[in-house]
């Protein structure tokens, strides 16, 4: 991963993408904290006050779902998505670069198609005003929105990562050059 100084030397558009991924990462972390608080409130309401919970179960589930999709670009930026590094460690130099571009193209194609499909999927719930079937009747377009937003930025973040390796500003897989099995 690049340090702060190296990051500042990058083109402005890369810094903007990084900032957007970090902002969504902070927002996702806040959603997880909110989910923890709401779960505690739900337990208190049910166990201590003896009342039934109405909205809490759906809210926490949607908060965690939104954090998953919105946090995906930040997790990619911080190399949090685990992979199996066997082949990359067996090869070096241009072969490792070629492997990285091939693998990234497959991953980007999946993320891109997922993003494309999520646009019409979200639009449908937004235009029809679909709600959940519970008493709370949450509007589904709100949690659904996290999918296209998160995946859209994930695709941009992925393309940025590929560009950085392509222009040799970063090493493929973040591995030290010349080190292999």
């Amino acid at each position, binding site marked *: 991963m690049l340090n702060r100084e190296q990051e500042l030397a990058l083109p402005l558009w890369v810094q903007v993408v990084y900032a957007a991924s970090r902002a969504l*990462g902070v927002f*996702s*972390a806040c959603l*997880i*904290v909110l*989910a*923890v*608080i709401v*779960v*505690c409130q*739900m*337990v208190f309401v049910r*166990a201590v006050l003896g009342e039934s919970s109405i909205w809490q*179960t759906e809210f*926490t*589930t*949607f908060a*965690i*779902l939104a*954090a*998953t999709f919105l*946090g*995906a670009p*930040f*997790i*990619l930026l*911080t190399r*949090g*998505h*685990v*992979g*199996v*590094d*066997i*082949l*990359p*460690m067996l090869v070096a130099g241009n072969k490792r670069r070629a*492997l*990285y571009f*091939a*693998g*990234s193209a*497959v*991953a980007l*194609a*999946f*993320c891109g*198609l*997922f993003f*494309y*499909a*999520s646009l*019409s*999927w*979200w639009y449908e719930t937004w235009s029809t005003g679909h709600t959940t079937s519970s008493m709370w009747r949450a509007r589904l377009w709100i949690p*659904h929105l996290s*999918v296209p937003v998160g995946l859209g930025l994930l695709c941009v973040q992925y393309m940025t990562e590929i560009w950085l390796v392509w222009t040799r500003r970063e090493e493929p*897989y973040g591995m030290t050059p010349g080190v292999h*099995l």
Partner: protein
Amino acid sequence: MSPLLIGALVFATTLLVLASGLPIAFGLGAVALGFMIIFDGWGSVHFLPETIFSGLDDFTLVSLPMFVIMGAAVASSRAGSDLYEALARLLHKVPGSLVISNIGACALFSALTGSSPATCAAIGKMGIPEMRKRGYDADLATGAIAAGGTLGILIPPSVTMILYGIASETSIGRLFIAGILPGLLLTTLFMAWALFLSWKRGTVLIDKDRVYSLKEKVELLPRLLPFIAVVVGVVYALYGGIATPSEAAGVGAMLCLVMVAVIYRVWRPRDMWHILRDGLRESGMLLLIIGTSILFGYMMSSLQVTQSVAETIGALQVNRWVVLAAINLMLLAAGCFLPPAAIILMTTPILMPVITAAGFDPIWFGVVLTINMELGLITPPVGLNLFVINGISPDIRLTTILKGAFPFMMCMVLAILILCVFPEIATWLPTKVMGK
């Protein structure tokens, strides 16, 4: 094309794609989507958001980030060092005490965090230099921590067991309680081996004449007992049916965040951000793998692969123990290359019909599978704990760590064999506490 042939193609493609190093979540999704497009046409793309979103739209999954936050909070504090130091002082006069303290600290810390690498890092940072300073060989010191760290996914609460519970649709509470006795069995086996090796090598502690006063022995306990109380409380709430896994984990996460702030003064915004960042990274990564593995399972089922594999194995008419041995060998081989989350989520939907048809208890199998996954954490080439230990002690060669970890791997194989002969070790406690 027959479903079995499609299954073989899916297997080969998945191996190739995942080995290329791309993130597992996207690799699984790409393979699933690719086969869906090939066999069902472009229209399959539109199933993607609904399949993945509705698969993740499950309150049980909320327990995952909550337990991860709970573990990240404890791992960010000095609780690991205190736990290690407290046990080392209490067991000072016992032969091989230091290595036993380390394994014991690993078992307790893994119960607090549910994470193997975090356990290895927290206990190893203190334990390995201390053991070497006091005369233990490098292989025993590192092997004990590498193996002790694996207890994290067996002793409850365990993220791995949550994943198995979701994939196999079995009770997470039952799985947690089923892991307790096998966890103690494995801890005892690890300790017995460490004791035997220390005795055989005639390891003499440099400070064996040091005497700890009663005050020194108990002074660290007040800092640790609240954390242990939270874990016991969470597990009790689950077994007693007082709370669901997500509710128990949510309250546990909140309590752990408050306790690390009060007891260890981990309260500054930067400290809190580190806990939340680690929690987000791990839980987000796991949830995306779960989402795409749901898509993978959907593809396998819609192409009739899952059903055909189960029917074929069922029609083989071989002894059920042969089937179990073959499954364990396959899981062991997969564990050498893939992380536990990916293996469990990919294989459980296929294995579950085979296991139940062969008359094995799914809860018992969950425990056996978890021990098998523990083995994968200390086997090359991608044994995560080996690399964590290597990072802590870069002067110790990986081969030395492996040499030290090998006997502990054999202890795990022995534990699986004992569980096969005496399955009650895993099934008795859940039945006793939660009924049939």
